[in-house]
């Protein structure tokens, strides 16, 4: 069982000419393996600062991040070992893969660097990972990113993230650039992998609908503070905080829209 603890984390940026900006203000939460937490909030609410601190691209001004009770290593081999435990999937599958390299190269690289499997098994492992994300190794392995669709590319990015056998996955808007019709497929894939590998997933998004369906718990962030944290259905269906209500009211909701327009119509 892996436990990631974010304890009283505050992050202050010094903005030239504008004084100090509090990006995170006393943020605490716990992410366990096998659990998905949805992190929602509008642009500038601090969602990505949390991801940056988790990957140690930024350091908290105060507070601590603990993995199984130990602080995140600051540098060197130990930091690399930590990052092997926690991988990211980014928003833009067009930008996160290198156009010059084949799909094989993208997935081989973390395998080589982290030495997860012996050298002679790398090729087999690449194929296994591609199958894991429901891509046919034979047809995609020698292709380059531009020859694949957005959904396929995001699957490659997921396979790459899984290569080092992480225990935690930070997915920053992993489906928002994909077509509506394939978003569910990718989310379902993430949900399957999460269940089968017992991954802890931090799902960062501003889409309340997918956050609700994909997460166990939801954290609502506003101006760097957690304003609401609870089971997904409670937070979205029975929001307590005014900001959460505002976010909910702003999200497209055809069910409510048509129900209020015509009492006879609607699905309920």
């Amino acid at each position, binding site marked *: 069982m892996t436990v990631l603890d974010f304890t009283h984390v505050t992050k202050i940026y010094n903005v030239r000419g504008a004084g100090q900006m509090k990006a995170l203000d006393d943020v605490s939460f716990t992410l366990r393996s096998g659990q*998905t937490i949805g992190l929602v909030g*509008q*642009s500038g609410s601090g969602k990505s600062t949390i991801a940056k601190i988790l990957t140690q691209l930024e350091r908290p001004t105060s507070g601590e991040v603990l993995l199984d009770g130990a602080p995140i290593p600051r540098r060197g081999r130990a930091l690399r070992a930590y990052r092997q435990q926690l991988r990211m999937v980014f928003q833009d599958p067009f930008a996160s893969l290198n156009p010059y390299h084949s799909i094989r190269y993208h997935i081989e690289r973390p395998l080589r660097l982290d030495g997860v499997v012996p050298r002679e098994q790398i090729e087999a492992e690449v194929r296994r990972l591609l199958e894991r994300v429901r891509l046919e190794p034979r047809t995609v392995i020698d292709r380059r990113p531009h020859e694949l669709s*957005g959904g396929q590319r995001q699957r490659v990015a997921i396979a790459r993230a899984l290569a080092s056998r992480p225990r935690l996955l930070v997915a920053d808007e992993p489906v928002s650039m994909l*077509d*509506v*019709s394939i*978003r*569910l497929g990718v*989310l*379902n894939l993430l*949900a*399957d992998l999460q*269940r089968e590998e017992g991954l802890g997933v931090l799902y960062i998004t*501003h*889409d*309340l*609908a*997918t956050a*609700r*369906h*994909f997460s*166990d718990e939801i954290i609502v962030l506003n101006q760097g503070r957690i304003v609401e944290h609870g089971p997904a*259905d409670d937070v*979205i*269906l029975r929001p307590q905080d005014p900001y959460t209500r*505002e*976010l*909910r*009211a*702003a*999200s*497209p*909701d*055809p*069910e*409510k*829209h*048509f129900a209020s*327009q*015509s009492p006879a*119509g*609607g*699905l309920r």
Partner: protein
Amino acid sequence: MSEALLSIQDFSVVYDVDPPVAAVKNVTLELQRGEILGLAGESGCGKTTLAYGVQRLLKAPAVITGGSVTFHDATGENIDINALDPEQMRRFRWDKVSMVFQGAMNALNPVAPIGAQLEDVFEVHRPGMSARQRRAEAKELLEIVKVGAQRIRSFPHELSGGMRQRVMIAMALALRPQLMVMDEPTTALDVLVQREILRQISQLRHEFGFSVIFITHDLPLLLEISDRIAIMRDGEIVELDTAEQIWNNPTNEYTRTLLSSFPRLTGERGVVVR
């Protein structure tokens, strides 16, 4: 009682590559004055090609292979868009039909203040206007879209994404066109900003009476903002009806698939199997 603004007849566009791709196939559509028409479908279904094609904004290898587009001007004149010569076309665009482009946040010139970019529209299309009038118009436009006239000297990077999008809408509104084509205008914005922009589009539509062709693959959003929705697939319109009918009684199988492919904010759980 309703009055047509744009009549599209048997309109077809082919991308002349090898092998040729029929991107829009015999589309017939009538857009009403003052209506918001949603154009939905997956990437590659032809929705953007159709919307660009009716204004002859397509570049090679796209070729309009058939059909007609008639614009029923407020003056009563019927304009056959395919028959306009380049100069007539230049004057027609933006004056009668304007656009808010996909990724509009990055469509502004980064090295010119937004006021100057708004004034450009008048300089080109209203050559009789004085500099003072142009400035006054630009200020009024910024007030209309609630960016505020005091931002007239701001550069794009000094504005938030939502504000930049409003400037783009102001620019599209400048000549009081009768039709605005919006291609994914809110896709890059977060929900709160998106909601504000949508509210503003609806409100401006009521105030100025223009029609909107709203292109997006975000069906939940389209259902809320559109009067009617056209569902496109493989270059064809497979269903066209009021938003309410599309939601309550979709008749086409593909429409039903699209509707079931997004998770509902308040609906049943279980679309993501966990």
